């Protein structure tokens, strides 16, 4: 079984800890993980903003980068959903526009079935719920929209968290409501985005949890940015970093650090 990490552009640039956590976790579970450096971005920011044509080279690049692997695992619900839902659509639209969409269609057909969001890979391929993690903190889980409604992750992330030693899971009120990030929505409609974020952050604070956890760092960028602006104690943490943490871990408990200043 050849497994590759698709780290995603946001994690690569802003959250390398999440990528390292996936490597640590999968290697602990006996999976050898490769990182083809040809990979870059899934194309979601361009696609969702209306620049579908700019995503076509990225569809081809994705397929090329991961051609030699059986599985592509990514610590992002929305990037996995982009590949699975939109790559075939991009090929169809190219064909409908009278351009040859065959190479795109082939790329999509090869990329889609091997692409897994991290918790899907753990639950459906490795079939584990107890990954041997230790995280002695109170945590609340926010199911992100694309994980919830596009990938239909269901209770996979929750079951994994429930088996983490020391972790106390706190119910998040209104969990299934969008946090208000929405990619460029956050800057195109900043007032509504912030109003949605404020409600989400209030719900997180109500739980009293030390950390808010998701399968997507892009949502955490928004939720965490608002928590920090409010000076709230709760910190954003990607589920991979919780699942990677162990008792033997001498590092600080996983979680996003404060400002480097």
């Amino acid at each position, binding site marked *: 079984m050849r497994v590759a990490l698709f780290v995603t552009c946001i994690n690569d640039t802003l959250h390398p800890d999440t990528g390292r956590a996936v490597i640590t976790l999968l290697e602990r579970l006996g999976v050898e993980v*490769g990182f083809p450096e040809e990979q870059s971005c899934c194309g979601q920011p361009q696609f969702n903003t209306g620049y*579908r044509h700019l995503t076509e080279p990225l569809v081809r690049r994705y397929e090329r980068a991961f051609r030699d692997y059986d599985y592509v695992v990514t610590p992002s619900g929305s990037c996995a959903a982009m590949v699975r839902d939109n790559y075939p659509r991009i090929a169809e639209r190219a064909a*409908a526009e009278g351009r040859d969409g065959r190479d795109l269609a082939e790329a999509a057909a090869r990329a889609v079935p091997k692409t897994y969001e991290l918790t899907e890979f753990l639950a459906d391929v490795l079939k584990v719920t107890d990954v041997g993690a230790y995280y002695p903190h109170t945590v609340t889980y926010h199911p992100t929209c694309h994980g919830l409604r596009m990938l239909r992750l269901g209770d996979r992330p929750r079951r994994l968290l429930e088996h983490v030693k020391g972790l106390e899971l706190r119910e998040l009120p209104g969990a299934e409501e969008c946090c208000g990030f*929405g*990619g460029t929505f956050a800057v195109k409609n900043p007032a509504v985005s912030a109003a949605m*974020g404020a409600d989400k952050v209030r719900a997180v604070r109500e739980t009293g949890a030390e950390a808010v956890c998701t399968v997507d760092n892009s949502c955490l960028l928004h939720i965490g940015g608002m928590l920090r602006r409010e000076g709230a104690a709760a910190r954003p943490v990607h589920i991979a970093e919780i699942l990677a943490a162990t008792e033997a871990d001498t590092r600080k408990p996983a979680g996003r650090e404060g400002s480097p200043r």
Partner: protein
Amino acid sequence: MSGTYLGMPAFPAAAASSTQDGRLRANLRYATHTIRDKRAKAVAELDDWARLRAAGAAVKDRTLRHLDHYLEQLEEAVTAAGGQVHWAADAAEANAIVARLVRETGEREVVKVKSMATQETGLNRALAEAGISAYETDLAELIVQLGDDLPSHILVPAIHRNRGEIRDIFREQMGRWGRAAPEGLSDAPGELAEAARLHLREKFLNAKVGISGANFMVAETGTLVVVESEGNGRMCLTLPETLISVVGIEKIVPTWQDLEIFLQLLPRSSTAERMNPYTSMWTGTTDGDGPRTFHLVLLDNGRTDTLADTVGRQALRCIRCSACLNVCPVYERAGGHAYGSAYPGPIGAILTPQLRGTASELDASLPYASSLCGACYEVCPVAIDIPEVLVHLRERVVQGGKVTRRGVKTVLKPAKGHAAERAAMRAAGFAFDHPGVLRAGQRLAGRTRRLHPRRLPGPGHAWSDTRDLPPVPAESFRDWWRRTRGEERGK
């Protein structure tokens, strides 16, 4: 509010002011969450909901593919049953037809059943200009009309009002339109309903002309269907001598058997009821019973153009249930007026830019009025993939492209104001397709990280006004990988 959506600001500005209105936010949050939870329960009662939904979508799609055929079948059936059919290419034509038909009766007053089509065409205003008073008889539409306001929700047009505000509107305005509100009217729902009942009774009994829309038109028999909760519709559809119905051409279902699907989908999705209290159906005219004259005005107003778009046409399946509004986190914070159209919420964000085009700043901003969270698609009883159409329309805004306008194929230019974004997207696209460039950018950001401002200048303030920026790590993941593992594994 002055009864028109013309000249309203683009969505982000209008929505920004709504988010500051605490009372509006509270009214909307309470109302949308209540109905959202009730809908979920009502839908969960049916174990074949997913199949009903698929059937609803399939029937609508098939009907739309053969719309010309079914429209002619409908016209024939309505005419054979004693009705008269009129065809309106746009809102102005529909309004002119209705005004002429009312004038021909010699009447100066009409009563109205709640109708989205006539909100879309701005009929009340057009009739007023023709010297005809149109009285809304749906309770929420009455509140909106008395308050010189605009509807902000498809099903509950006065959702932005709470009962205290409604009491004030009734006290101050009812007397100017007809029977005044009772002395000492309180904000108890029962008292408010009774005040409306007394006020409207006078209108129903005097009216000689009724105006309605329709939820469905059955092509095989020429039957029109109105579903409602209050009974005002039944009054308007049966008491007047003349009935004029203005209906969008996409409201057709071929047969009564098809109707059965929608009469299950609609009430549960809209009011969370197993069946709505009143379902009125009529076929042309019947001697000695109901209106003696029946006119059907079939409204196009951009629908045929929308049908020409293979991605966008699914919006025409809409049965106006408003489930998408009730689950939408953006609608809940922005309110219905920010959408600048009779169709607010997610469905409005895909319908308005197709029916009206994307030429105005407001209409071009609507496809962006969504975080693409997908809650709307999940609840849509006819499976309209609203996020898919939103993204498709964003593409139309930033890239232009082929569209159909008034039946003519034309090529749209990209909208103004997206040049900087386009350049940024192209630059990002280049970097993402050249990982060496990406790596160089990451290293630059990492090395300069202590110099990054806490708040961004220029357009970046849209992010940093309310959120801190994430700290940039000293080393990107790909650099870490290359430094620690590059030689042994990976490529």
